[in-house]
């Protein structure tokens, strides 16, 4: 059994912005035992999952996969990707399998085993559980899943823990393409597969998953190298100007999670309360003391679901008249009323964001007084059909021009238009599921496959 293993993480979200190559190749020179990263996130909103599309161009994703595949095969070490294509849906997994196959051909790579797993969950599966009175428990203050919310959902993915990754490693996969996955499981699985403790393995994943976001000075898309031993995890920045420090690594524990002490995954919780951080050398931080507590009873797997609200158009208007700015709510009220006269108050959504007032923060904005001499207004109309979405957005935008304010001096038009049209946007979606489902065998949600790719010897 090896005494230590090295993990090279080139990117915190593969393909979202291309990997920086200099630090990546410095990482490759360290002869890692694995090259791995995640490729997805729910940060990007519910649209890509609902519409089953990527949030980034295929070319960027191919670029990053190519960097990783070529070096992993040259070194003869596994390459592991989680949450393929931003969302980890089945079509994104298939797309990555296709890209890997094409790259193998392009580089004339000798034969290797390509493992992959799916993580989409169909509604009937959850409905059947609910019919058996099983709870689909809500997270973050959400109520348990109802039939109604489920019916509004177009696409669901389950978030994998280490289980399908370990299964594919057992099956001898050289390259793994994962469906939706917990970021930290991508790294924890190979470490645990090689007999390292769950405590340190999950922590290793936690600290590596965002690549150089755990280093300073700030700079994304640079590679970091993680090392696991029997006693500790070490993480080293690969970019010549970056360092992993006690401050940067402990600070990263807080990033994009509500509590810096706990990280929940399918199968348990990583407890970082007793983590001890130490500067190991100039570029490396050493961490000891994380604990993993396995869940008692059934494994709870997180579900993400997105449902379409409707087709969407966007309108843009500008306001410069000070009296109109002062009375902007009245102006918007007029435009809304014109939409209501035709369509009533239900069956569509009409949103106004007023930049210069509270466009960024909405109700959270503590500055109540408008201090800007001009306003930018973005109108969003969402409706069952494109035609209706276009029309309500058009009425809601153009009627800003016709708003009737009693004392306005300018009587030739109340709003400036950079173009007198409304623009088609992607459909509106909403996160309908942020829940967990209890399962006896976590693999039941994540079917695994193994194929051979590359040229015959």
């Amino acid at each position: 059994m090896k005494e230590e293993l090295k993990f090279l993480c080139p990117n915190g979200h593969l393909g979202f912005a291309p990997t920086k190559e200099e630090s990546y190749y410095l990482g490759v020179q360290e002869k890692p035992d694995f090259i791995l990263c995640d490729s997805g996130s729910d940060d990007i909103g519910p649209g890509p999952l609902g519409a089953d599309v990527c949030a980034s161009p295929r070319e960027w994703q191919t670029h990053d996969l190519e960097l990783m595949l070529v070096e992993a095969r040259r070194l003869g070490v596994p390459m592991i990707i989680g949450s393929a294509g931003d969302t980890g849906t089945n079509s994104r997994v298939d797309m990555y399998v296709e890209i890997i196959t094409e790259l193998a051909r392009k580089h004339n790579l000798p034969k290797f085993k390509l493992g992959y797993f799916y993580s989409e969950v169909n509604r009937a599966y959850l409905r059947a559980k609910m019919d058996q009175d099983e709870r689909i428990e809500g997270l973050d203050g959400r109520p348990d899943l109802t039939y109604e919310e489920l019916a509004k959902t177009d696409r669901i993915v389950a978030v994998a823990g280490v289980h399908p990754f370990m299964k594919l490693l057992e099956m001898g996969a050289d390259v793994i393409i994962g469906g939706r996955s917990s970021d930290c499981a991508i790294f924890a699985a190979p470490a645990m597969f090689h007999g390292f403790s769950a405590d340190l393995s999950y922590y290793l994943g936690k600290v590596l998953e965002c690549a150089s976001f755990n280093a300073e000075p700030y700079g994304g898309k640079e590679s970091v190298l993680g090392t696991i031993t029997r006693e500790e995890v070490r993480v080293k920045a690969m970019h010549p100007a970056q360092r992993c420090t006690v401050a940067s690594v402990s600070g990263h524990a807080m990033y994009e999670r509500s509590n810096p002490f706990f990280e929940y995954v399918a199968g348990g919780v990583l407890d970082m309360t007793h983590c001890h951080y130490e500067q190991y050398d100039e570029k490396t931080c050493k961490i000891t003391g994380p604990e993993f507590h396995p869940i008692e009873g059934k494994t709870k797997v997180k579900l993400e679901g997105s449902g379409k609200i409707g087709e969407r158009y966007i309108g843009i208007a500008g306001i410069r008249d000070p009296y109109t700015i002062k009375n902007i709510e009245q102006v918007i009220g007029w435009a809304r009323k014109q939409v209501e006269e035709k369509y009533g108050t239900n069956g569509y959504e009409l949103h106004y964001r007023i930049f210069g007032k509270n466009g960024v923060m909405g109700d959270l904005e503590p500055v109540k007084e408008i201090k800007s001499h001009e306003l930018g207004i973005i109108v969003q109309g969402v409706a069952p059909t494109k035609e209706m979405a276009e029309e309500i957005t058009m009425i809601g935008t153009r009627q800003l021009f016709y708003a009737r304010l009693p004392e306005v001096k300018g009587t030739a038009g109340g709003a400036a238009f950079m173009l007198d049209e409304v623009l088609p946007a992607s459909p509106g979606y909403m996160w309908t599921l942020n829940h967990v489902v209890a399962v006896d065998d976590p693999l039941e949600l994540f079917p695994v496959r193994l194929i051979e790719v590359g040229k015959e010897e």
Partner: protein
Amino acid sequence: MKTRKLVDLAKTIRSKNAGPDKITFDIIFREKENYDLVKKSGVINRELICNIYNLQEREIADFVEFDPAYAIKFTMYRRRPSGSPGESDVFGCQQYAPLLDIEIPVG
């Protein structure tokens, strides 16, 4: 009493989505002295956050002082999930600005 603005004491003040239903805020200090000063002042607490962002107490999911990173961290629930039509900060990354001007008493 003399005061200093939080922006002059902290190294990092940021906000970010934490899953689809929450936005989390980090206030991180470079020096232990500044962290201790702000922590001991007790100025940054759930009540202040509610006042600044016009929230009910139950809309705050978490409030923690995180000693290993010299950081104060709190998390709020979103009123609508991230990226819903009408939302305008899917990453939640521009919600921290009102924290910059918090006045901290210094001696």
